[in-house]
């Protein structure tokens, strides 16, 4: 094996190029943004007055600390995805933050200053219920973890278990909460729904049961939802049916006292389950006697329990004015509700003492669109974090518009010709405008030069956006799962616009399409977002301008039927918008835009518009053809038996892909032509039988127009997940080999052979010969998260595969290494062709990581877009983080280097020029002399 690796190394060293980022280029062409996701728990670090930390645990299993002054991350820990890394509870005491992770599987303590792990212990299995810090005599030394059947107490300093006790009658009683008031006892509260409450008091020292009582409560079903502990161990519950509060002293009573809300002069909103909120600032002391009662969606009350009597301190009716000063240092909320456009999800408030000893408030608000906003008391927004960007679903890159003058010139050519004279006038006027712009530019340069450099601002704003020389700066339109759309400048990562779409279904599928690019001035660019409810299939369209984010004035058609398929056609309407065809479940087709002109074009082209539908539930692939009356007809059908295999993914080629070379030149100077079928689909299936000996994945290459199966292969003893890239004449896929227990790559290439069937045009209807299929497989030393191929303007540059690894690296693997023509034994011809000898293992070389040390956590997708430079491909990797960079698969062959020596080359040129002049003269003289002789 060592030899194998050594040989591979040698090969690679011999035949590949070195590309890496220089130290001074770090961050010049790339940027990264780190996100945490939707917040579940949050704690302000209050043990030091001047602390500026807030601890956040999120639904994405991330635990992070954020600077409250700037909103930047201090540190961040990304746990496993899924239920194993799920954060169940976050408790904070002093320097330590205790997390319960993975349904009570692990207990971890973190140092909040540096984000280091203090200790971690594995708890016994059992479903997690609740956890709390336990203090005694003003010091907090323990943490109690309540599970379904046991309660355990751990030391806060090292995590060791002090005692563990089984809960009595845990089969019948549903224990839900644990409470400690700092008096050396730990109370466990359980409920038998609609019967009684069970209360067990444990001794802090040895876990002995001190007391065990049960109290009648036939109206109660869930303790955590309706009960809190207030003041000196007073359990208070709210019952919406009887519209009353129930109180019970945990230490003394065995009977609940009913206090009807009417007796307090309160009324509940019908249909609203009232909520109680209490606070316990110090775990070693009992909770405060003040508590909140929410009676309606916007109706909160601050109440106080005063020697068994409940007194209303303040009634927060829906208020208009925000940030009124509060009466108590108890946390207050609901006031800010009115200030926000979007309804508030969660609110965390930090109270602090100002310099003049008055109380100030800072609030961190999480709104429905997953934005975190931090507000200081007078209503000043300190910072916002767009956490929706941690869940990007799909994206597109749109060219920036031209500047006014460029657009004027473009517009001149775009317009219809009127006549010679008017064209001349138009030309003159546009030249005049250009001149004017140039003078203005000069004036600005002159003006700026006089100002000190620091004053000259170079910010990117939506006003001064314009395309650069090489079209390297683009607008990234990102669609997030929460339904918020973002427009981000690809050069700097600045969010230029955001737009929240409300009433997005929770399981929506999105498809973003660019209908009109910026190339058609004066028509604004236009993007269309198709939002489809996965359950019902009903879809809506959102049409917007991708540069400014504004909703377009074009009204999209109302889609009443469930949608099956949408496809962009290359035909355009009179306003240069590409036509979007939508197929509903009645197989009726509607077009958007549906002007007369479009319908006429569609009728003309109908017989050549084919599309396919995939029904993975029935394993059916079917092809349809459009009829002139915009109905469809079924023309081919392929059915996979669902009891054997299921269709996992269907990949076509990207419509904006260009292939420059038709074939490959072989060692003997003949040409092997590529099979470049733009309608080819790569269908991946996985076996339903998951036994490692019998499981397989299947690859089918199907022509999307005729339904002809071009190639059918099975990879035996393998299973998914399969990642596929389909481009040019090749398909690359990655799978898990159950036989050898490793990840493997396989590449399929299609060739027409030494002769091209019809070199002028490709038609799926007229390709009778099946292509030659070559395939080769390789071992890959890592699992992968996602895969994409680079894309360039004209397709001259060689291709690389961009592979997102679970480790957070993005690997740029030259396609040259995945070539089924790599020979096992080198011959003269294969050497001539520059083929790398076959080695079964693909190595990961550290120079291939395009994101050097900028780890991109949980990469879910990679988007590639061509730039104006043929050598350069723009790459965006998104997942929990967003990373944007440029790659140069064939190095920068069309760009002069920064340190290019213009002096040298020009002096050499001049020297040569003079040398030729002089030598010419000398030669003439010599010839003349010879003639005289």
């Amino acid at each position, binding site marked *: 094996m060592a*030899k*194998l690796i050594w*040989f591979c190394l040698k090969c690679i060293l011999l035949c590949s190029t070195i590309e890496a980022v220089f130290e001074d280029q770090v961050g010049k062409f790339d940027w990264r943004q780190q996100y945490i996701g939707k917040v579940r728990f949050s704690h302000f670090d209050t043990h030091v007055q001047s602390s500026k930390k807030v601890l956040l645990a999120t639904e994405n299993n991330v635990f992070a600390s954020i600077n409250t002054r700037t909103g930047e991350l201090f540190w961040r820990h990304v746990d496993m995805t899924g239920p194993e890394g799920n954060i169940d509870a976050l408790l904070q005491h002093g320097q330590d933050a205790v997390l319960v992770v993975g349904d009570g599987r692990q207990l971890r303590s973190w140092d909040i200053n540096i984000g280091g792990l203090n200790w971690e212990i594995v708890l016994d299995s059992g479903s997690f219920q609740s956890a709390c810090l336990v203090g005694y005599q003003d010091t907090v030394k323990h943490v109690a973890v309540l599970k379904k059947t046991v309660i355990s107490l751990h030391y806060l300093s090292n995590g060791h278990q002090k005692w563990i006790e089984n809960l009595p009658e845990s089969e019948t009683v549903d224990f839900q909460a644990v409470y400690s008031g700092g008096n050396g006892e730990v109370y466990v509260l359980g409920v038998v729904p609609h019967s009684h409450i069970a209360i067990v008091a444990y001794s802090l020292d040895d876990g002995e049961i001190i007391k065990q009582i049960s109290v009648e409560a036939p109206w109660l079903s869930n303790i955590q939802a309706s009960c809190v502990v207030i003041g000196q161990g007073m359990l208070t519950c709210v019952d919406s049916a009887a519209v009353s509060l129930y109180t019970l002293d945990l230490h003394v009573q065995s009977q609940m006292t009913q206090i009807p809300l009417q007796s307090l002069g309160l009324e509940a909103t019908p249909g609203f389950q009232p909520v109680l909120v209490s606070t316990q600032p110090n775990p070693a002391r009992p909770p405060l006697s003040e508590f909140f009662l929410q009676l309606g969606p916007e109706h909160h009350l601050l109440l106080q329990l005063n020697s068994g009597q409940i007194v209303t301190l303040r009634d927060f009716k829906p208020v208009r004015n925000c940030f009124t000063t509060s009466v108590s240092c108890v946390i207050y909320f609901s006031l800010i509700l009115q200030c926000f456009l979007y309804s508030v999800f969660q609110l965390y408030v930090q109270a602090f003492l100002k310099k003049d000893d008055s109380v100030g408030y800072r609030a961190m608000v999480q709104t429905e669109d997953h934005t975190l906003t931090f507000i200081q008391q007078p209503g000043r927004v300190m910072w916002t974090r767009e956490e929706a960007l941690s869940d990007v679903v799909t994206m597109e890159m749109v060219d920036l518009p031209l500047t006014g003058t460029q657009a004027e010139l473009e517009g001149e050519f775009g317009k219809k010709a009127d006549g010679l004279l008017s064209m001349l006038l138009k030309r003159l006027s546009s030249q005049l405008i250009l001149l004017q712009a140039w003078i203005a530019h000069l004036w600005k340069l002159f003006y700026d030069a006089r100002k000190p450099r620091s004053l000259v601002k170079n910010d990117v704003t939506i006003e001064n956006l314009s395309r650069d020389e090489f079209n390297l700066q683009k607008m990234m339109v990102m669609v997030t799962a929460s339904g918020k759309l973002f427009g981000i400048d690809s050069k700097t990562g600045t969010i230029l616009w955001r737009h929240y779409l409300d009433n997005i279904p929770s399981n929506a599928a999105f498809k973003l399409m660019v209908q009109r690019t910026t190339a058609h001035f004066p028509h604004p660019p236009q993007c269309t977002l198709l939002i489809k409810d996965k359950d019902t299939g009903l879809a809506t369209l959102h049409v917007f301008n991708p540069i400014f984010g504004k909703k377009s004035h074009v009204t999209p058609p109302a889609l009443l039927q469930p949608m099956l398929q949408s496809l962009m056609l290359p035909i355009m309407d009179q306003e240069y918008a590409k036509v979007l065809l939508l197929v509903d479940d009645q197989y009726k087709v509607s077009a958007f835009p549906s002007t007369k002109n479009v319908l006429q074009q569609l009728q003309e082209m109908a*017989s050549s518009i084919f599309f396919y539908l995939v029904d993975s539930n029935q394993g059916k692939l079917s092809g349809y*053809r459009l*009829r002139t009356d915009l109905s469809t*007809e*079924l*023309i*081919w*059908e*392929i*059915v*996979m*038996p669902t009891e*054997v*295999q299921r269709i996992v993914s269907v990949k076509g080629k990207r419509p904006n892909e260009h292939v420059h070379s038709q074939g490959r030149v072989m060692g003997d100077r003949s040409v092997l032509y590529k099979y470049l079928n733009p309608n080819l689909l790569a269908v991946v299936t996985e*076996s339903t039988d998951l036994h490692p000996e019998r499981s*397989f994945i*299947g*690859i089918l290459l*199907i022509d999307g127009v*005729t*339904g*002809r*199966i071009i*190639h*059918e*292969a*099975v*990879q*035996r003893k393998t299973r998914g997940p399969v990642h596929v890239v389909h481009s040019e004449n090749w398909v690359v896929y990655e799978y898990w*080999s159950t*036989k*050898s227990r490793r990840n*493997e790559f*396989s590449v399929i290439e299609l060739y027409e052979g030494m002769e091209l069937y*019809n070199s002028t045009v490709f038609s799926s*209807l*007229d*390709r*009778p010969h099946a292509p030659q*299929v070559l*395939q*080769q*497989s*390789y*071992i890959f030393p890592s699992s992968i998260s996602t895969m994409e191929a680079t894309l360039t303007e004209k397709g001259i540059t060689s291709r690389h595969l961009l592979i997102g690894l679970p480790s957070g690296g993005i690997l740029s693997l030259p396609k040259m290494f995945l070539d089924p023509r790599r020979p*096992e*034994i080198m011959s003269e011809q294969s050497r001539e062709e520059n083929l790398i000898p*076959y*080695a*079964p*293992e693909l190595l990961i070389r550290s120079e291939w990581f395009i994101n050097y040390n900028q780890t991109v956590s949980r990469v879910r997708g990679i988007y590639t877009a061509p730039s104006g430079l043929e050598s350069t491909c723009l790459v965006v990797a998104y997942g929990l983080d967003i990373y944007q960079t440029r790659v140069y698969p064939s190095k920068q062959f069309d760009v002069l280097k920064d340190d290019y020596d213009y002096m040298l080359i020009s002096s050499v040129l001049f020297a040569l020029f003079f040398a030729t002049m002089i030598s010419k003269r000398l030669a003439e003289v010599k010839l003349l002399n010879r003639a005289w002789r």
Partner: protein
Amino acid sequence: MSRILKTSILKNPPEVLKLWFSLRCLPVPLSVNMARPLPFKIAVVSTVLFVVCTDFVFCNSGRRVGDVMDTEFSGFSVPLEHSFEVADVAKFRVRGALMLKAGREPSVSLTQSQLSEEDRAKLKEVAAVDGLYRIRVPRVFLQADRQTERQMEGYLTAFVRACAMVESHLSDVISLHIDVSGYVIGVSIVTLPGACRGTEVEDEVDLEVFNTTLSVMAPVNAPGPETALFVERMEQESEKKGKNPQEQKSFFAKYWYLILGGAIFLMVTNSAQPPAGGGREQS
């Protein structure tokens, strides 16, 4: 060889049955085969068995020796239907019958009648308006034991342009694609030549008889990484290197003169320096 056969028998119990049946009803030539050396023999036997059996059953198809054998070895037929309509609404009619034979290497044959005069005219008509010529076969499961399990609901369809059909004088290539377990998953049809050049087919006789090439396409086994061959080659190379004495020498053996030279140089420079340093110290 014998080992491989055994495992395959274990995996597919019906195959044992198949072999057994064939053995029971085999005529004389087999016993001659039996006398050959063992490892080679079984392979030959199995292939011979197979051939003989299929032949055997073929001739006895009318006699119904045993039900199991009959379903195992006689092919079964499904209709191949086609449709070509000017109105482009599919109306499928029977074009022929596909005889499918299950087994390790499934095979297919087609019996089809000629196109009637009416159909020929219609096909030309359809070709003139650039209509489609479609075919369909019912979904079939080749490896099923019983007839009822073989046919499933639904059809597999494919098409070519009718003009291509006409211009190629009804010479088409139809292939049935089966998946790993023997389900027919797709059918495809192409004509040879495939282009529509608008050439008139004058002679009606050209459109009478189908000239069909038929095939069953099973999935290809995709190759895995070729480690064995690579390692073998590496070993060969290292062996070659081993024979070359130049490569065999150790580091010291190869570069002793350089090391020696370096050492002498160091010694000389060291011995030259101390007096100078000492001199300075003294002064």
